[in-house]
């Protein structure tokens, strides 16, 4: 029975929260399977990440370093993963449902003869056959499906911000360096340039103020910006979000879109202004800690999933709210 292996990721020098979430669920699965949890880190240089990962108490932290693993060229990473799996022979291999996870997961599964389930919101071990039970939303969020697949290792990509990040553990893991053989000819896709853009990292926000069709026009977002500024004083990272309609109408760029085809978020507070609450939008924010809805339609879906509701014109409420917040 192989171990549970997690592909970790680094963000600005330390472990990504997603990795910590994977550690959390990985621990549980390892226990259910009666095996160990291991973490895998790839990079161009051996870094402090391994030590940090070790502090979360996995049995082993596999560290792979190779110059061709600099940045992220999927073909090199895939080759490296293939070699690691051949050596480590994990029973379960988890990745976060992220850009890297989706580039690597399907192709690695194919090469290993495994079957991958993507975007899982829950994982469990079937007590009868030890296979992974993978729970994921399907049909745009209209249904939840639990899959079981044959194949070794059992593979899944895990949706972010669903599982709690693990806390550091007492026992420290053992750091094992694995060497991989890579050469430039393995890559058939050449990277010509990598460009950073002003990206709106909605999933990092503590509070999101989102606008939809109910704003009536582009200027509505100026009103929301006033609220965003006012809230920024007491709430940390406050950002502007939107529904797909607002993007379609050209009022705001798609970076701000919350929902199935936008960004899935679960901030501390989500303020939905003039958003009716179509399912594709709801699935993107329904796990927010607190949801406040402002809409003139008392019967709209958003009120059904909100904690607090105001049936009023946003144009009347928000300026008054901003005033009150500034007074407090």
């Amino acid at each position, binding site marked *: 029975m192989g171990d549970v292996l997690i592909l970790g990721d680094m963000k600005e020098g330390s472990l990504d929260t997603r990795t910590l979430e994977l550690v959390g669920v990985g621990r549980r699965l390892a226990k259910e399977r009666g095996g160990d949890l291991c973490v895998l880190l790839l990079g161009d240089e051996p870094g402090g990440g391994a030590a940090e990962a070790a502090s979360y108490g996995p049995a082993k932290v596999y560290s792979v370093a190779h110059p061709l693993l600099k940045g992220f060229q999927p073909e090199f990473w895939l080759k490296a993963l293939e070699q690691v799996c051949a050596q480590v022979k994990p029973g379960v291999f988890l990745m976060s449902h992220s850009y890297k996870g989706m580039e690597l997961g399907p192709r690695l599964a194919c090469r290993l003869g495994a079957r991958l389930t993507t975007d899982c919101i829950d994982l469990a071990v079937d007590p009868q056959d030890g296979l992974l039970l993978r729970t994921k939303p399907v049909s745009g969020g209209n249904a939840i499906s639990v899959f079981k697949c044959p194949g070794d290792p059992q593979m899944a990509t895990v949706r972010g911000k669903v599982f709690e990040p693990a806390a550091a553990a007492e026992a420290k893991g053992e750091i094992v360096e694995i060497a991989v053989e890579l050469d430039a000819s393995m890559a058939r896709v050449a990277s010509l340039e990598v460009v950073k853009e002003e990206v709106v990292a909605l999933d990092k926000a503590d509070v999101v103020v989102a606008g939809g069709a109910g704003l*009536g026009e582009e*200027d509505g977002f100026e009103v929301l910006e006033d609220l965003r500024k006012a809230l920024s004083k007491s709430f940390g990272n406050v950002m502007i979000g939107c529904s797909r309609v607002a993007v379609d109408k*050209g009022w705001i760029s798609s970076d701000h879109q919350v929902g199935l085809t936008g960004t899935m978020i679960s901030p501390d507070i989500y303020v939905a202004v003039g958003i009716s609450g179509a399912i594709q939008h709801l699935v993107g924010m329904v796990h927010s800690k607190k949801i406040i809805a402002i809409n003139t*339609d008392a019967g709209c879906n958003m009120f059904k999933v909100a904690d607090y509701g105001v049936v009023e014109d946003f*144009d009347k409420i928000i300026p008054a709210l901003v005033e009150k917040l500034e007074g407090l």
Partner: protein
Amino acid sequence: MTPQRMMFWQIDLVWLFYLLAALATALFLAGMAAHVLVWKKNAGSLKIPFSKEALKRMVLDSFLGRRILHGEPAAGLMHLLIFWGFLSLFIGTTVLAVHHYLVAFLTGTTYLIFSVAMEIAGLMLLAGLLWALVRRYMQRVPRLERRLEDAVVPLWLLVVGLSGFLLEGLRLSYEQPVWGGWSFAGGWAGALFSASASEAAYPAVWWGHTLLSLSLIAVIPFTKLFHVLGAPAAVYFEGIEKPAALDIEEAGQFDLGDTVFFDACMRCGRCVAVCPSAGAKEPFAPRDFIQAMRRSLWQTHSSFGDVRFLSRGEESDVDKNFWYCTTCRACLEVCPIYGASFEAVTRKRVLAVEEGTQVPKLLNQTLEKLAKYDNPWESSKGQRDAWAKDLNPPDLTKRGVEADLCYFVGCTTSFDDTARGIARSLTKILQTTGASFGILGKKEPCCGDIARRVGELGLFQEQQEKCLELFDRYGITEVVTSSPHCFHTFRNEYPDAPFRARHYTLLLREMLEQGQLRFREQQKTTVTYHDPCYLGRYNRIFDEPREVIRAIPGLNLVEMAHHREDSLCCGGGGGRMWQDLTGEVKMSEIRIREAEATGAKILVTACPLCRIMLEDARKAAGLNETLQVMDLNELVLQALEGVDAEAPGA
């Protein structure tokens, strides 16, 4: 000596005159031929259907200048002066030629009368031209352009006229005939010159006047002067009855009438002055669009390029901005040659829809929704009758349910929160008055108006077939609609429809006449009424809604600056509701400000699109406290005896 005209005085090279005249005529004819050839190439055939009505209208409009007087008496008078001045002079010259070559009859009293007539005509022409120049360059009337051609043409004609008088003056100054006083203007001009100076100057001035006149005639087809022939032709063609149904195969093509319209457009700009899109500073104006069509006409069909050589180089891509037109029909209302720019726009849309890549994204999605779900708002038919749930109007599609009247609610009224108030109000009114009516519930299709306006004729035909089939299946012969768009489409664009369609305002007025509507005294309120484009301009229904409003005691109806035929579009028609095109301001905001200016507390309208657009505009303009927007149904319901007052839009 008997009064008569001295012909060709001191002009020896008379043959040169004839040569030049022939040349001028040849050029003129060549230019005219070019126009006709281009028309033929574009329209396919030059078959001219005969219509007595169209002919009569053409004659009356041309000679009485009715359309130019329409709404602008100053412009009309000015143009009549030029028209009759020039026409009289032209007839005069012809008469003189007849006298010279055929029958010498212009002598004696005949000649004197002729002389006076010519003086008056000449003065009329000069007065008209000066007035025109004053309007364009000193008053700077906004719709009038100040391009090179706009200065050159009237000035040219002015110089021809002035030189004509000068010529006459020189002749009289030399001749000093006793009857000279009859040519008072010429006489005045001639008094400035001595007899010998006149004699000396005369030939030069004569040749100058001749060259200028002949060349003016020659360039008629090559400048906007073409309108002197083109405009009557266009008026004739626009008067020919067009079939109600657009043949899908030919829908993207411009027929002879359209072609002549493009070519005859004189750039007067009345359309621009009334176009709500131009008024909102959007990148669209009917004149620009039609001129772009005219240019492309020439670029496509003429090997020499644009015939209006002074207009060359005025490139624009305004003909790509044809999605802005709301099809409000304000342009047709004022165009002196009855040009329907919005119809030309629709034809371009038909072509764009067929080609596919230039259809804006939102419209693309909307049309797909319409095709799949019979409505442009939601991806489901399920909520179509949600507005009716607690009111329970009879569903005519259920077995055994019959009624005299079918209330065709329409897509917008069914699905939009604000517009639902219209359906609820009308239903309650009908229920209160005990009318026999029913709705089509979830089965109600779209009338097809949106598809028709944006050029998706195949989809329009599909929806049309669905409606006809449904009406036939359930034996529906009387239909009343919430929306003027549905009403207009049913009445005017469903050929041979076996059912009668009315807009609800006609029904309310009928109920009023029959004493079925009893109103309570209302708190004294000033209200104003916005004429929806498709109810007012398209179907000339202006009075009925006003009669209903006036019947409610306590309400004082005032009119906005633009009302009835001049009503300003709210911006929701022509498919605009499902796009997001704006200019510097929103059309609906301009309209709401007009409503505000009347001091009215309530702005009443009779169309779901207007209801939504004006409601949004009211909020955007911050008029929440001072102005309320209501549909006529909501207003009537509120005032009906025996009904609990309900907040509009609830």
